[in-house]
């Protein structure tokens, strides 16, 4: 992924895990469709998060549309810490994160360009650690842990028999466990 594409993606897809997911699928030799599907599945949660704060977002349609872009995992989680969602906290944290996020992506493309083979340094494992740390807070809930384990099983069993990227997309089926009462 080129430097300009990375920065544009940070500015437009303000949702880090989806960016890394798409990059990870492409890097492994997966198709564009698999990369897009993995990223969109990962970001589908924003629809649900948006619903939880929908009644708090101030202003008319345009302002609500723009404000809603400040919803990311961290700003959403912070704003709900008191037990009910508070829009000013979400908006403030979201704006701050946006600036830091786009800025550090730009910095990363400069530093990354200096490295010859990032994987030799163990950066592939660092990305696994990133996804793991992002998943961790969800796994306290028993059903999420169960669904995540099922996703691991699906991914491992499909990896030897399907093209890269397909196992990740297929693993999304594990979320149907949510239909169980």
């Amino acid at each position: 992924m080129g430097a300009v594409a990375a920065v544009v993606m940070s500015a437009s897809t303000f949702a880090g895990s989806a960016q890394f997911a798409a990059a990870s699928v492409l890097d492994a030799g997966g198709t564009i469709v698999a990369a897009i599907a993995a990223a969109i599945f990962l970001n589908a949660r924003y629809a649900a998060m948006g619903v939880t704060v929908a009644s708090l977002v101030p202003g008319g349609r345009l302002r609500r549309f723009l404000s809603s872009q400040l919803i990311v995992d961290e700003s959403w989680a912070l704003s709900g810490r008191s037990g009910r969602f508070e829009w000013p906290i979400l908006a403030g944290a979201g704006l701050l994160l946006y600036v830091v996020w786009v800025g550090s992506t730009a910095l990363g493309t400069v530093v990354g360009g200096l490295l010859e083979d990032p994987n030799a340094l163990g950066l592939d494992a660092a990305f696994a650690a990133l996804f793991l740390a992002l998943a961790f807070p969800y796994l306290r809930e028993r059903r999420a842990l169960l669904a995540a384990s099922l996703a691991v099983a699906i991914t491992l069993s499909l990896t030897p028999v399907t093209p890269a990227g397909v196992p990740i997309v297929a693993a999304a089926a594990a979320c149907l466990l949510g239909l169980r009462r």
Partner: protein
Amino acid sequence: MSDVWIVVVVVGLATVLLKASGPVFLGRRNLPRRVEPVVMLLAPVMLAALVTTQTFGGDGEVSIDARVPGVAAALTATWRGVPIIGAMAIAAVVTGLVRVLG
């Protein structure tokens, strides 16, 4: 347009629409009660799948190599409350060391 740019544009547009869907289109209504838990499970499920391919994925096979001790160390660190960037550094250092020594 190159493959990377197609992904950047499509994922960008989709993310913007997903975020806006609640506040702009739904107003004060809620997601159907049966659907919400499914949507909320998507994030842990996709992240678990990504951890798996990023740790064990290879050229069309499941491989166990220097990444495994690195990710195991990062898991322990995360468990103990080490922040994300620290866990990433630990994974990189352990895996890098195993590669150099192995």
